[in-house]
């Protein structure tokens, strides 16, 4: 009762505020309160785990970080070394000789075994033949054969004519 009276006193002082319905005007994402307990409990569980295990599970030797700092500073300040590829003249000339020898042998063996040259004309002809219809080729071959046969017939007639009209002596005589 006392609480109600106490909470109503201000209404007389502020009639405009009093006329505004008291309600929560903020909203929350869908299912927010359904998941809130679980989210808080998960956070509490993580917190308990953190409390159980020390922050650093790995250790380093004592004074490691001080030594590391000194080493890094020392390495950073020391001048950089120039590495020589050849420490003596003998090694330098031997390397050059080896290089020349290897290069010479390479050239020699390449000359002995010439690369087979590619006959582009043959390849082109094969391609043309491949592209022509098979029947056309068969017809062409048959036509050529007839001409050859007719030519053969003419040749035998000529031989018969020569054998008939000329003697062996005349035929074997040297001119």
């Amino acid at each position, binding site marked *: 009762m*006392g*609480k109600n009276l*106490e*909470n109503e006193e*201000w209404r007389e*002082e*502020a*009639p*405009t*505020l009093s006329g*505004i319905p*008291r*309600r*929560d*005007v*903020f*909203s*929350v*994402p869908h299912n*927010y*309160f359904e998941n*809130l*307990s679980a*989210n*808080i*409990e998960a*956070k*509490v569980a993580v*917190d308990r785990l953190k409390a159980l295990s020390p922050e650093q599970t790995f250790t380093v030797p004592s004074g490691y970080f001080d030594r590391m700092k000194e080493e890094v500073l020392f390495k950073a300040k020391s001048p950089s070394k120039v590495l020589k590829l050849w420490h003596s003249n003998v090694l330098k000339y031997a390397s050059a000789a080896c290089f020349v020898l290897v290069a010479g042998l390479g050239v020699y063996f390449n000359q002995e075994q010439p690369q087979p040259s590619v006959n582009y004309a043959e390849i082109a002809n094969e391609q043309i033949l491949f592209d022509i219809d098979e029947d056309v080729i068969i017809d062409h071959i048959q036509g050529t054969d007839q001409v050859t046969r007719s030519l053969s017939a003419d040749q035998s007639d000529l031989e018969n004519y020569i054998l008939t009209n000329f003697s062996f002596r005349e035929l074997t005589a040297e001119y």
Partner: protein
Amino acid sequence: MKQVEDSEILEKFSNEKTRNEAFNLLLTKYQQKIYWHIRRLVIDHDDADDLVQDVFIKVWKNLEKFRSDSQLYTWIYRIASNESITFLNKKKQRNNTPLDEVSSELSETLVESSYFNGDTIQLKLQQAILTLPDKQRLVFNMKYYDDLKYEEISEITGTSVGALKASFHIAVKKIEAFMLNDDITF
């Protein structure tokens, strides 16, 4: 649904075997009240979500040390209020915001928020509340929205009842004046 008594929660929490159950009961009973209390202070939902979780982690850690000479809910309210005020102060420092611009910054958050479903009058009321200093706003919210008694607010804030009455009276007057000002429209 019958609400579980605070004394039962505390008893269960004192037993290692029923501690998790007790905490679950506590969350069920207080999570929404505490969320809305924080939300009205910090306005932004994501900030309120972070804070409400931090508050209950603190509750979990310190509940064992809780002394029964104060009420459980006023103790949780105190943690939530302190966390929210600390958050707002840090936010001001981080953004280097002058005091008079704090309310306008929170008002912008309010207007831009996708989780505000009030009408023009409600929006104006929220803007009016945001013109109050943080602690006055805290007192106003606990009285106006949560219907808490001055003794309870006194326990939460550690401020005397007389000072709280004066603070609430001033807050109401300021809000009434803001609401009557026709120059402020939305």
